[in-house]
């Protein structure tokens, strides 16, 4: 059991050691309890693919997979994810060998500025695995947790559709 109780007088609680399996690799890091999973990934592990958009669970730019389920990494603490498998966009593909969903986003122009794209891609990978890519309406509903302020939605929907079709 992890136990970090503030010492008397309200002194800052000590940092805790957290073990995560990030993109297949076991990582240990020492963080204060207040550090979000997103900040741990970006600031401690140097994985800047997941973006800090709203930092309030409203935009989806920070989407990652934890034990294969898509979540917002900004609204959970790193310490809460002790022992879990975390997949970020860096764990999906590389520029030389992109994930099929990444290739589809390129092919179908599923982005403009690119800020939301890592979250869109990770979310789309999960959506396809969940079986929610049956129609354009279904894709729009199940991608609703990822906002794109450039409004590249037609391209995003086309990319998810194509990737789902190619994967089935």
């Amino acid at each position, binding site marked *: 059991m*992890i136990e970090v109780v503030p010492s008397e007088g309200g002194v800052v609680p000590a940092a805790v050691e957290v073990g995560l399996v990030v993109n297949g690799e076991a990582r240990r890091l020492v963080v204060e309890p207040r550090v*979000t999973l997103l900040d741990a990934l970006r600031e401690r592990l140097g994985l800047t693919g997941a973006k800090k958009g709203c930092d309030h669970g409203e935009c989806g730019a920070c989407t990652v997979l934890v034990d294969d389920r898509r979540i917002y990494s900004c609204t959970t603490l790193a310490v809460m994810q002790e022992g879990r498998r975390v997949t970020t966009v860096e764990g999906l593909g590389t520029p030389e060998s992109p994930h099929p969903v990444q290739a589809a986003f390129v092919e179908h122009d599923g982005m403009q500025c690119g800020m939301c794209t890592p979250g869109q891609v990770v979310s789309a990978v999960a959506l396809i695995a969940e079986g929610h890519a049956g129609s354009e309406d279904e894709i729009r509903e199940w991608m609703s947790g990822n906002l794109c302020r450039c409004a590249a939605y037609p391209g995003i929907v086309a990319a998810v559709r194509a990737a789902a079709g190619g994967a089935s």
Partner: protein
Amino acid sequence: MRPFGYVRAESPEAAAALVAGDLSAAFVGGGTEILNWLKDGLADPALLVDVGRLGLDAVEVSDGGLRLGSGARMSDVARDRHVRAEFPVLARALEAGASPQLRNMATLGGNLLQRTRCAYFREPSFPCNKRVPGTGCPARDGDHAMHAILGASDACVAVHPSDLAVALLALDARVEVLGVHGRREVAIEDFYPHAGDDPRRETALRHGELVVGIGVPSGPRARTSGYLKVRERGSFAFALVSVAAAVEVVEGVVRSARIALGGVAHRPWRVRAAEDALLGRPLADGSVADAAEAAVRDADPLPGNRYKVAIARGAVRRVLEEIGERG
């Protein structure tokens, strides 16, 4: 976020004892709501007690109904085949809430304990009677398009944000609570207090009490239930108005009904007058129109949210029509 301590409790009893013994401690389940409180300065706990890995996530089916663990994630309950078939209002309300990512994180217990999304409440630079009693309510004379049309007090016109709570009200659900003195059950109708002098009081929970489960009776209406949520955008938005309804039709006439509204009051809002308008009549145009009218008879909107009255009326009608068409 200000610094805080963190402990992963080893049992629900230990979690309740830890929080009960420390006024500055709070539970964290999925984290999706309390992390925003911490970031926005709405809560300042010295210790977070994690109840997310206590095995409180079971969905159990019995002859009498459902027993949902408070730690069950919204997405897992919404996906459950039995829930979808036998308690459609529950599955639909859960899927109408939040986004896929949040539903994978958020627990049922945490969902019931969400606080209002009133922008004045969420932004501590504004006065707010719910945050700091006696400072006033800027929403009443300010932007209140999203605010209450029923049951508001002089002190506060905020609305409760949960879809799940509205569905549970239509299902006569009971909330199971664990405290240091043992367990107790609270009817969902009594879980959220009526407007009083102190808008800070939002649930029947005492400090240190942990929601451990939700009991949902099968009853004669659960299967013939429905949910409709009206939002500013197609998905991932809080309700302008939502309606949960459950109707029992025997030999062509309504024998019993539950109708509850969301997005219109500081608590999920049961409209008994609308239920009564259906009783003993076929679920058809005349009774449905009367129920829709009765649902908003007591509405007392502010200048900026009069539109909600018409939406509520129409939403009640549409949910009842949809239930009628399903038979």
